[in-house]
């Protein structure tokens, strides 16, 4: 008896030792991270692509660490919890509460006690409360620079079994009793017997070819990786064809106030250096390029584009400009890229409506607030316009505008623009007086309806939506009233 137990203990020790050795090998791998961006967290969530120690995974199932960057608003909370519970154990959550890093070219100097600062503190407090209540075991960092080290530490402790995996937040049980017949719920009378977990079997409807097919209702977002954070889309699928699409509410609404760090928002009130504006525009377009390449499974090229955006500073514009020229030649020559995007998400001129910015200009509408600005005209500014109106035109539009912005930066010197309540930001025209709100996101349902899923996603990506900007503009305009 004693001998047996002794031998058993020895074997247990050997097994522990082996487990540790294997764990050490695994701990050295890149950390599979699934990022979720809340208010102000989009840039930080995107930037983890640049780290070689972290690997962005496309599905929470494969993730070990879930990164929650920025404030989780009430509409984002349930999806975040669901994704947390879907991640396969061992899993850990890491909160980044401080928002994303500010635009590096603009020193963030909110005056003490200003509205912005108060709002930031309130936002952080709300996220802390959510973390305490729903994610009590989650890690926490305050600086974006700490994310990599903290993720690696969580990962290491998980695989070495020094940290317990986070338990599911919601109970893993069906919402309603199983009322299906047969193993998959398809049994019973005729084709529609049973209601598995209270879900009726799909209704039928005409597809685009007039065939009677099952309609599958599906809610996409707000953390669906190829689409922008916060985008909620209710779609009905017929196979992989989007039969109907409806835009959900903006989860950032009411949680984003005016931003003191965004040069375009500042330019509404007072003149800002053109060089700062154009640097920000180029960065924004390059970040979009990174996202778009990521959605096409070109993750290495996507890292390259993002590195260009994040390295871009006032003092290295010629260098980045030359690299971007090479990069864009390569992209524009790519046959497969034109195959993937040409004719996808086509917008007609009559659909443009209140849409501004690169999306409108890629449809042939020469609208640009910079055209009415004497300082820009003095620099010889003329807007770039493409006529095709498809996703490929929008790709070329943004790449072309990024290069144009870098040229403007080198010419602008100390010229300033703004202060007149109108500004052209990377996504369109912002005009305080007339209260027009850019409606790019409203175009989305029309663009994706009747399209195959792959085309629908590429069309959505090509719009370069930013729901946080939409929410911010709404709040700024309401404040102005």
């Amino acid at each position: 008896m004693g001998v047996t137990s002794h031998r058993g203990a020895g074997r247990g020790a050997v097994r522990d030792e082996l487990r540790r050795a294997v764990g050490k090998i695994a701990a050295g791998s890149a950390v599979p991270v699934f990022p979720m961006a809340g208010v102000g967290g989009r840039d930080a969530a995107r930037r983890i692509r640049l780290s070689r120690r972290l690997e962005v995974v496309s599905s929470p199932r494969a993730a070990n660490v879930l990164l929650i960057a920025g404030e989780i608003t009430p509409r984002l909370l349930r999806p975040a919890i669901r994704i947390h519970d879907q991640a396969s154990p061992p899993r850990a959550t890491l909160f980044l509460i401080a928002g994303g890093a500010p635009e590096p070219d603009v020193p963030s100097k909110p005056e003490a006690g200003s509205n912005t600062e108060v709002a930031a503190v309130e936002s952080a407090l709300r996220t802390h409360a959510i973390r305490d209540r729903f994610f009590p075991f989650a890690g926490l960092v305050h600086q974006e620079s700490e994310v990599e080290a903290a993720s690696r530490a969580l990962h290491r402790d998980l695989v070495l079994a020094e940290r317990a995996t986070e338990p599911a937040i919601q109970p893993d049980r069906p919402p309603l009793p199983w009322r299906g017949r047969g193993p998959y719920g398809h049994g019973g009378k005729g084709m529609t017997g049973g209601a598995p977990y209270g879900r009726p079997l799909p209704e039928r409807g005409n597809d685009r070819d007039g065939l009677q097919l099952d309609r599958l209702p599906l809610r996409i977002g707000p953390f669906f990786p190829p689409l922008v954070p916060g985008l909620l889309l209710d779609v009905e699928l017929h196979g992989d064809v989007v039969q109907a699409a409806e835009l959900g509410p903006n989860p950032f609404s009411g949680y984003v106030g005016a931003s003191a760090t965004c040069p375009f928002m500042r330019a509404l009130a007072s003149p800002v250096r053109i060089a700062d504006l154009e640097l920000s525009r180029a960065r924004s377009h390059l970040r979009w390029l990174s996202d778009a390449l990521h959605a096409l499974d070109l993750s290495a090229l996507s890292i390259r584009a993002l590195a260009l955006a994040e390295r871009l500073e006032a003092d290295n514009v010629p260098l980045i400009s030359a690299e971007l020229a090479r990069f864009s030649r390569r992209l524009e020559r790519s046959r497969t890229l034109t195959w993937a995007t040409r004719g996808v998400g086509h917008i007609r001129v009559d659909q443009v409506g209140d849409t501004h910015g690169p999306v409108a200009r890629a449809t042939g509408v020469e609208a640009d607030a910079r055209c009415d600005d004497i300082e820009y005209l003095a620099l010889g500014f003329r807007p770039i316009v493409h006529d095709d109106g498809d996703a490929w035109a929008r790709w070329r539009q943004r790449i072309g505008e990024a290069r144009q912005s870098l040229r403007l930066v080198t010419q602008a010197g100390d010229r300033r623009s703004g202060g007149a309540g109108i500004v052209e930001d990377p996504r369109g025209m912002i005009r305080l007086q007339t209260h027009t709100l850019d409606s790019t996101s409203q175009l989305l349902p029309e663009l994706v309806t009747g399209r195959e899923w792959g085309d629908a996603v590429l069309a959505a990506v090509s719009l370069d939506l930013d729901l946080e900007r939409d929410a911010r503009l709404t709040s700024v305009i309401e404040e102005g009233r």
Partner: protein
Amino acid sequence: MTDVAAGVLALGVALFLGVYLVSVLDRFVSDLVAGHGLTANVFWAGPRRAVLLLLQQPSRTERPDAEAWAFAPALLGALGALGLATIPLAPELPLADNADGIVLFGAAMALVMVAVFLHGWSANSVFPLIGAYRFVALALSYEMPLALVLISAALPAESLSVGEIIRSQTDVWNVIRQPLGLPIYMVTVAGLAFWGPLRLPDAADLSGGTRAEVSGPALAAWEVGRSMVLVAAAAMGAAAFLGGWLGPWLPGVVWMGLKTLVLLVLIVWSGHHLARVRTERFVVVAWVVLIPLALIDVFLSGWLALAAR
């Protein structure tokens, strides 16, 4: 009996090396394209990741087809192994060089569709299922040209045995004799291993497609299986178009390895440079361009083979 054991061992070693090589190449090209510096990490990243996945727990979905879900990666890997077994890696190393090896290879590669479909189907989830159907929509479009260019390669040899096909290239390789063959073949390999521009069933726009609900050991098995298919397809490309083990100075098996490596580099490179194409566009191009070209390849090769007699 010892021959069989030696053959199985050689196949295992070749597959292991091949899969490891794919992981190293993939990381290497990815780091190069991303503009990261190159480090020794390219050699360890793949194995480390495999160990990590083995420690992860498998995921559960609502009412999955559990047997099929477990079977799909095993089937994919087995098909890769079967495909590689038909290829003699050296004159003295014919694994299963039977009289109609190229037919067996074609049959194994046709069944890849079943493995991918099962993988997407059995999770009982939306995006994997769409990925599965995408692959079915794609499959015939790459399988037809694949079969046609392999038949062309067999014509000068007047044999369906892969060994004979290699020997028939002693004077001139098929890549020169049939210039259409290898380019068409490489496109079909991208489809077969759903790699690069034809990575449609596991695409990012489906959040990973058939693998969207998979984690842990099953995910590792799926990736290994996919690499095995890629290795088998690259080795067949080397055998059917680049003269297999033929070459001066070096032993035959080294030549075979080098030629396979060249094709693997090509396909891995494409994975980091070429955007994923649309299903519809590829199907159109396959039927309007690839299949007619492959037919021309068959007729020209047959004509040349007859003229040479």
